[in-house]
């Protein structure tokens, strides 16, 4: 039996957010590719410099990449932002859940119908997992759908502890640390 069902905590990723009336303009000036539709995502940069930009609603942005990524460091740095650009401190816990039966695992903790999604449109889903607000980006991969999840760090233990026995029940593993 292959153990390709994995719950992986991504602890080498950094993230930050921006909102405000001039956030779009400023982030574009920083060289980021911004998704145009609310609740969708886009990728900027290549390989190790790759960052994902999720548009939450109309005017809030969530940016995540490897710690040390040049653009992430630059936009998240402490320098004063122009007026109308409001940095949002994001200390989210990031994890990935993927592999065989991943949809069965999610079905036990989340009422969202992932099967109905058009993945080509790069959707971002804000929903509840085990009654806790999360941000989910589903991505296609060779083993079916791969879900990237971010949640408030103060709920991380609760969510991971709740997911772990379900993942194990479906023959998967929980990797505490993971380098991507």
């Amino acid at each position, binding site marked *: 039996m292959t153990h390709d069902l994995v719950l992986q905590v991504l602890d080498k990723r950094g993230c930050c957010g921006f909102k405000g009336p001039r956030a779009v303009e400023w982030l574009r000036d920083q060289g980021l590719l911004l998704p145009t539709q609310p609740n969708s995502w886009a990728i900027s940069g290549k390989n190790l410099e790759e960052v994902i930009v999720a548009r939450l609603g109309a005017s809030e942005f969530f940016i995540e990449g490897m710690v040390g990524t040049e653009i992430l460091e630059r936009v998240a740095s402490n320098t004063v932002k122009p007026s109308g650009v409001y940095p949002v401190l994001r200390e989210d816990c990031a994890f990935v859940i993927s592999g065989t039966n991943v949809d069965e695992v999610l079905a036990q903790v989340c009422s969202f119908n992932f099967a109905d999604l058009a993945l080509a449109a790069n959707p971002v889903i804000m*929903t509840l997992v085990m009654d806790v*607000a999360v941000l989910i980006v589903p991505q296609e991969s060779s083993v079916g759908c791969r879900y990237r999840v971010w949640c408030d760090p103060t709920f991380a233990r609760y969510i991971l502890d709740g997911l772990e026995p379900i993942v194990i029940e479906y023959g998967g593993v929980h990797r505490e640390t993971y380098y991507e």
Partner: protein
Amino acid sequence: MKLLVCPLNGPRPVTEFAYGGEVRVSPDPDACSDAEWGNYVFNRSGSPGQKYEWWCHAASGFWFIALRDTTTDLVIATYPAEFVQTGFSRVRPQ
């Protein structure tokens, strides 16, 4: 479980939402009488019918307005929250 169609997040079960009460317009606090103010603060209309209501999609913190028929529990339309400043004054019951 009831589905509610969030203008931002699409159809979601009602457990993902928080109810914010009926959209009501306060009387001018400086011009109204104590009785008028008391009526605004404490009395709610329980009569059935179509009502504009505040709803918040909890996972995204997105507030919007739903026009709901409280007799049938059917949501007739939803609007972004800006509607309370732009369109609501035109349609609200006097």
